[in-house]
């Protein structure tokens, strides 16, 4: 293991005394074990905590008295705690896990400086814990996606800086002559996130910009957390695991490069579409809408590329857990992004803005796309770290079906519900459809609330289904960590495929 590597040597590879050679994949996987497991366990803890917060918030939407006496769990706090636990707790820790493993594999060199990574991991998780405690006790900054109180954010920034330094070192020591597209995405994300995070922190919290500029910075950040941090990591995973599991190269590498660069050009402009119809200059909104529509280029390019790679191999979905999650995520990436482009249009936003439709879209992107891809990646990575098989195929199936069906129900119900809500709020004539007296104008707000109830209850039910999936996943992971490795097995059997299978899938 390269843990003994001197940091000064790493900063200047030319003076390194250590002859770094191209390492075997199994050695590389083993070298990432400790930091990768640290981030996996953190991510797992946060997704369970985050889902519980989500369920409490969701129940409060249709049963307002639920836990109504606990000030820590009032809607404003628990919903915010949910968002931060899943974004900075689950999704970011899972991203770090995938980054560590993929960077080491794609650089073709043993993991360097695990201590650096562990330090970053401790800083990050302590920061998120303090932040969420602060939110629950009422210290939230009230700026969406930046609610973590200012006394916790420097910890997150330090953690991220350490992670960035590590990635640059790994990249410089890379032993692969080619930089695979996943590495482009990962390195770009590691550059972009500190940029958007630091600028947003300064301009909204430390020295707040005045008026609508603050709102612009806020939504530029919030949208780019998805677009420039989670999307690149999700796509990096799809571009690696999809061809790797199938054993066939990506359909068109040219398209994957085109997808990367067009995303880099257009995504960062799109955040303004959250303020369509708001008090910001019309040209700024139009620029945001134009960029959102231009995003169709990378999205369609990526969608075609993934689909063409899968053609002829759909039967593989039956035997690979990783592939199921990855393909589900990739399909939803295309769907959510296309819907997102159209949501930015003024005519569409007029109906759906400030309705449950937005919540559907957020979960479609961060759950049905990103989280499912992360699950797929973990199903691939963990057996290679521990050299054990997953203990239960049944639990994997429960996990997949509960989360896939749960997330689809949630997205569908809230998308339809959001449209219904928006139309009722906008169009007085629809009062007739509710059985009210013709001419009841406008539809009373309470009627709209009543109509929404069935959608909100369905959302809670889908949330319970998703929670069941997470429990199955957690049980499987903990079981796998604890179960002893049988002495005669040197590698999990799932790496060695039977000859019959090789022939039919070739």
């Amino acid at each position, binding site marked *: 293991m390269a843990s003994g590597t001197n940091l000064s040597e790493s900063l200047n590879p030319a003076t390194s005394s250590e002859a770094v050679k191209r390492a075997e994949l199994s050695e590389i996987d083993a070298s990432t074990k400790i930091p990768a497991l640290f981030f996996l366990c953190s991510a797992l803890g946060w997704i369970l905590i985050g889902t519980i917060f989500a369920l409490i918030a969701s129940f409060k939407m249709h049963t307002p008295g639920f836990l109504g006496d606990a000030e820590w769990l009032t809607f404003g706090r628990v919903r915010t705690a949910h968002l931060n636990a899943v974004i900075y707790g689950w999704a970011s820790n899972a991203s770090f896990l995938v980054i560590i493993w993929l960077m080491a594999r794609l650089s073709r060199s043993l993991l360097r400086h695990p201590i650096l990574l562990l330090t970053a991991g401790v800083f990050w998780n302590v920061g998120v814990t303090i932040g969420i405690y602060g939110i629950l006790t009422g210290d939230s900054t009230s700026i969406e996606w930046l609610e973590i109180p200012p006394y916790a954010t420097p910890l997150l920034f330090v953690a991220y800086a350490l992670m960035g330094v590590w990635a640059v070192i790994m990249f410089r020591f890379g032993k692969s002559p080619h*930089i*695979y597209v996943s590495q482009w995405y990962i390195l770009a994300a590691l550059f972009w996130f500190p940029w958007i995070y630091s600028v947003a922190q300064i301009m909204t919290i430390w020295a707040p910009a005045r008026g609508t500029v603050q709102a612009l910075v806020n939504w530029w950040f919030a949208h780019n957390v998805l677009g420039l941090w989670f999307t690149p990591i999700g796509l990096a995973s799809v571009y690696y695991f999809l061809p790797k599991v199938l*054993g066939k190269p*990506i359909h068109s590498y040219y398209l*994957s490069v085109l997808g990367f660069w067009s995303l*880099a050009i257009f995504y960062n402009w799109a955040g303004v579409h959250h303020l369509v119809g708001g008090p910001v200059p019309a040209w700024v909104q139009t620029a945001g809408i134009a960029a959102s529509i231009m995003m169709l280029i990378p999205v369609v390019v990526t969608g075609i590329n993934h689909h063409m790679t899968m053609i002829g191999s759909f039967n593989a979905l039956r035997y*690979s*857990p990783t592939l199921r999650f990855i393909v589900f995520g990739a399909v939803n990436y295309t769907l959510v992004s296309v819907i997102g482009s159209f949501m930015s249009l003024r005519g569409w936003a007029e109906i759906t803005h400030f309705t449950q439709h937005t919540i559907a879209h957020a979960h479609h992107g961060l759950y049905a796309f990103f989280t499912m891809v992360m699950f797929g990646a973990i199903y691939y990575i963990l057996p290679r770290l521990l050299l054990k098989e997953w203990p239960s195929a049944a639990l*994997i199936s429960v996990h997949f079906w509960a989360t896939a069906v749960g997330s689809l129900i949630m997205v569908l119900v809230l998308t339809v519900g959001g449209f219904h809500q928006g139309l009722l709020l906008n169009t007085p004539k629809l009062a007739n459809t509710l059985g009210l007296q013709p001419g009841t104008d406008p539809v009373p707000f309470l009627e709209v609330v009543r109509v929404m109830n069935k959608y909100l209850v369905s959302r809670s039910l889908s949330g319970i289904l998703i929670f069941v999936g997470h429990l199955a996943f957690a049980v499987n992971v903990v079981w796998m960590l604890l179960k002893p490795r049988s002495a005669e097995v040197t590698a*999990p059997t799932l790496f060695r495929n039977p000859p019959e299978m090789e022939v039919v899938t070739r």
Partner: protein
Amino acid sequence: MEWFFYAFAFVFALLVTASAVYGLYWSSKHGQLRDFEKGAASIFDETEPVGVPTDFFPKKAKKKKDARKLG
């Protein structure tokens, strides 16, 4: 003081843009945008070659019946 942060954000944005442009220039200069087939195959090697799937449900791979069904 506010102008300072606007200036800071502007310069920072320019630097990030410049780094992306440099990234594109660098990749073109170092042959990363040539020979795409080689690029796509770069994640495969002798231990995990093209043509061999690498992920299965635990224990399922052992069952001959399942494997036959795939054909």
